[in-house]
């Protein structure tokens, strides 16, 4: 059942992403991208990451995409006369690059939990397997006991406290940078 729903949303995500890069109008491309992100949010929920799924819909499909739409509206580039898709050379380049990447990454389809566990244990230098997998089980147990958000909050504010604070600095810098860049030069 979960698998069927996953494949339905996966098809929606891939189809919408393909439409996004093929639509001539930026507004249509953006709406298709929002559709792809909503499908990805549903997939996150299917993968037991309910909090991340909600954040995906609120922050990505909501806030960031509205920012894009706002800029498109502000620049009035929604209605285009000529297509901005590159010519035959560009299409060929996109096909070659895309084909290379997909050929390189196609082995990922075959991965299962058991195979990943075997490979991680085999490469001892990469990560301490016992620690990682015990942590994973502990995290799942934690989620069951403390709820979806309760399982994420303690590591975020204890283990990852410094990156979290740096994130706030990054956002402040981004705000200042955006204001300086977008300010009209007198």
């Amino acid at each position, binding site marked *: 059942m*979960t698998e069927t729903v*996953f*494949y339905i949303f*996966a098809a929606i*995500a*891939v189809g919408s*992403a393909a439409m*996004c*890069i093929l639509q001539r109008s930026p507004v249509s491309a953006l709406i298709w*991208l929002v559709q*792809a992100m909503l499908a*990805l949010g549903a*997939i996150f929920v*299917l*993968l*037991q*990451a309910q909090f991340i799924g909600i*954040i*995906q819909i609120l922050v*990505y499909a909501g*806030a*960031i995409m509205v*920012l*894009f739409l706002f*800029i498109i509206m502000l*620049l009035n*580039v929604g209605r285009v006369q000529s297509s*901005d*898709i*590159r010519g035959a050379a*560009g*299409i060929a*380049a996109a*096909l070659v690059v*895309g084909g290379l*990447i997909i050929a390189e*990454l*196609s082995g*990922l*389809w075959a991965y299962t*939990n058991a195979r*990943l566990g075997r490979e991680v244990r085999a490469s001892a230098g990469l990560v301490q397997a016992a620690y*990682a997998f015990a*942590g*994973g089980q*502990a*995290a*799942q147990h*934690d*989620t069951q006991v403390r709820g979806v958000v309760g399982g*994420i909050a303690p*590591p*975020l504010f204890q283990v990852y406290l410094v990156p979290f604070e740096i*994130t706030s600095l*990054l*956002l402040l810098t*981004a705000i200042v*940078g*955006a204001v300086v*860049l977008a300010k009209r030069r007198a």
Partner: protein
Amino acid sequence: MLLGPALGLSALLFTLGVAGVVLRRNAIVIFMCVELMLNAVNLAFVALAQIYGVGGYLIVFFVMTVAAAEAAVGLAIILAVFRHHQSIDLQNINLLHG
């Protein structure tokens, strides 16, 4: 559960994002394709977090924050370039051309 298919879908979406960056000339659409690539990577993190624990979710959290900051600054740059050139077609943007 669903580890392989999720990683495969992530690879597929990332490829579509790269193809979009190569294919398009509109700066905003290229930016949207970059967001698509970030989303694909997030999917890989979430899929692996099923096994490795909540660390993956937290990385997704940080990636989203960085994406928001990047979107704000990038769109401000596009706005500034549009004021200068009256166009966001990358063909017309060659400020760094020697």
